[in-house]
Every structure is written in C-alpha cells, then in structure tokens.
C-alpha cells in the first residue's frame, strides 16, 4: 500500500463518517451544515480521482449552491424538535443488500479497461476544445448538455408555478434588511466584481483546462446571490421580459447552433473549422443563462406582489 492509497482510505473514511452524521444527526441545521462539509470532502475525492472538472462542479454546485438552498430551507422549516432516523430492520437489511450488490459489482469490474478514452483522444483534434471533458460536454454529447439546460429551465418554471396567485409575477425572495455600510453590505459590493471576472475566466479557460459553462456560471450565480443577500441589488420580478430573455438565451443559442449543424451533416454536428468559436460562443451565453437560472432556483418562488 502506497502513501497515496493510505490518504484515499482516510479520505473515504472521513466521507463516510460525515455521511453517517448527515443521516444520523438529530439537529436539522447541523445535518445540513455537515452535508456541506461532506460535499467539500467529496470535492477532494474528485481531485484525487483526476477529475478536476467534476471537483469544480461538486464544490460549486453540490456543496455550495445546494448548501445555501438547504440552509435557507432549514431556517424556515426547522420546528426545533430534532429528528432521529427511525430504526427499520427490514430497510436496514435491504440497504445492506444494496451495498453488498454494488460492492460486488465494483470488485468484479475493477479490471483495467480503456473505456472511451481512445475514441475521445482520436477525435479531440476536430472537437474544437482541448479539454476532453468540455469536448464531450459541448460536442460529442451535446444532446445531454442541451437537455440539461432545458431541465434547469423547467425546474425553475416548476418552482415559480408554486407561488400563490397574489404574488405571481412578483419578486422572488424576501426583503433584505441589511445596513448598507455594514460588514455584509461592504462584502456584497467588494466580491461581485472579482467573482464575475473569475466566472468568465472559468468559462474562457474551460476549452483548454478544467472549467466551463457550468462551473463559471455557478460562480457568477453565487456572487449575484451574495449581492442580493447583502441588499446591494434586488432580485428581478419574474414577469420581467428581460429576465426571461436572459434565461432563454443560452438554451436558444445552443439549439440554434445545433440546427445549424445540419449544414455539417446532422443535428448538433459542428464543422471542425468553426467548432472552436461556436463552442466558445455557446458556452459564454449558456454560462450567463445558467448563472441566472441557478441563482433564481436558490432564491425560490416569487413572494412579493409586483
């Protein structure tokens, strides 16, 4: 056993302990806070697995945005009673069976396999992106990513649809009471410009290094949320046409390039000569739409009348 293996085992034990605490802990708020810790530990695991793009996504979305969303919900829905998981022997047995079956599958599959690496490597020169993950996301399996953008939009429509009639079309979230010159107010004006640059940089660098539309978009969404929480900007009313155009722009541009792909032979087929600028353009617009969609998903349904 090498030193690296020892580190991996220790990391996995930490992850499992955190997960057990998330399920078994009594306090709702503590459970959610531990879930964020768990997400950050998973981020390290992804780096260990050589998947830096996934690590960025897990850290930003899995731990960060999901954490903010659940913390906000816990503050509203915590009755202070605390909950212990009930003891269910049947379910416990079933879960042990699931773990055993999956574990057996992992052990039997743990043999060297090249997977799709040779195929990706072979086609990378015509993909328009040097980062293989970005090439897969936006070119080889562009369908997936288009559907994913659509799923985000549909989820947002679903969240909005839950608003009572009197607040439909109004602003999301509650009114923030923050002192403009206070600590949070200052932080809310200091960080967004830096965060915006970092987000755009992540999108830009995504074609050749870890990064991309989803990771960059999440950073932009995070600083927008911070600015809203610090009372620097108001969340837009959901009836706003400009907001809706922004939300639609990414999927629409992606779809349009997909249809343009018919010129190169098939839907979503990119002509290698134009692939790079096309991917970059789609990514930049998609990142902005994703940022707006993610942030609005976190602040939730409209609550204030227009």
């Amino acid at each position, binding site marked *: 056993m090498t030193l690296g293996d020892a580190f991996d085992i220790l990391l996995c034990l930490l992850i499992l302990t955190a997960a057990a605490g998330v399920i078994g802990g009594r306090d709702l708020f503590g459970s959610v806070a531990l879930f964020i810790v768990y997400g950050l530990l998973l981020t390290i695991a992804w780096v260990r697995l050589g998947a830096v793009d996934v690590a960025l996504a897990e850290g930003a979305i899995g731990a960060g945005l999901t954490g903010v969303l659940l913390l906000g919900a816990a503050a509203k829905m915590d009755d202070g009673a605390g909950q212990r998981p009930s003891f269910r022997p049947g379910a416990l047995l079933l879960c042990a069976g699931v773990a055993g079956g999956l574990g057996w599958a992992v052990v039997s599959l743990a043999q060297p396999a090249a997977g799709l690496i040779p195929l990706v490597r072979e086609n990378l020169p015509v993909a328009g992106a040097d980062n293989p993950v970005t090439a897969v996301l936006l070119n080889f399996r562009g369908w997936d990513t288009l559907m994913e953008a659509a799923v985000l939009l549909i989820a947002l429509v679903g969240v909005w649809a839950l608003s009572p009639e009197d607040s439909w079309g109004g602003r999301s979230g509650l009114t923030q009471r923050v002192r403009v010159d206070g*600590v*949070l107010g200052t*932080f809310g004006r200091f*960080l967004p410009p*830096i965060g915006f640059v970092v987000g755009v940089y992540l999108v830009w660098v995504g074609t050749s290094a870890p990064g991309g539309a989803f990771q960059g978009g999440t950073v932009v969404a995070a600083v927008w949320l911070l600015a809203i929480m610090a009372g620097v900007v108001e969340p837009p009313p959901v009836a706003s046409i400009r907001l809706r155009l922004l939300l639609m722009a990414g999927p629409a541009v992606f779809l349009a390039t997909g249809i343009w792909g018919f010129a190169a032979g098939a839907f979503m087929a990119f002509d290698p000569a134009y692939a790079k600028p096309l991917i970059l353009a789609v990514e930049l617009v998609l990142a902005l739409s994703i940022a707006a969609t993610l942030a609005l998903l976190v602040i939730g349904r409209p609550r204030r009348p227009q």
Partner: protein
Amino acid sequence: MIADVITVTLISIGLFFFIAGTAGFIRFPDVHSRLHALTKADNLGLGFVVLGVVAQADSGWSVLKLLLVWLLALTAAATTAQLIARFALPPGERP
C-alpha cells in the same frame, strides 16, 4: 530540491496553525472564543500553506491566482466571523 524543502517546511508550519485552531474550536467554551481561534489561527495557517504551494508554482500567473485564493478566503472568513459573532450576541447587547 530546495523548493521542496521550502514547501514541506512552510506547509508543516501552516498545518501547526490549523491544528492549533482546531484544538481551540473543540476546547473553547463559547461561540466568540471559538470564532477567534478558527479565524485567526486558520487564516494564518492557510497563508503558510499558500506560500508553500507558491514555491512549487511554475509561472507568475499561478502565484497571482494562489494569492487571490488566500485574499478571498481572508475576506470571506473575516465577514462571516463578524456576522456569526453579531448573531451570537445576547439579545439587547450591542457590539
């Protein structure tokens, strides 16, 4: 080789501060002293870890990015510490 020695030394110093901060977090009795241990010791520890990694950086850009990470962590820690500290004050008391 020299860079490796510098890295190991600096990161060891950084880890010492992290351990000190964590010990404070576990041992100290109330929110404010715990916050004090976490934000003071851990930010210093992170600074040493960043300096240790800087010794391994291959370009000026990497150094700049690493320092930006430290700066952002510092400001975020300072802000959240203030907010938590204010929230934890007994009702009616002003800072």
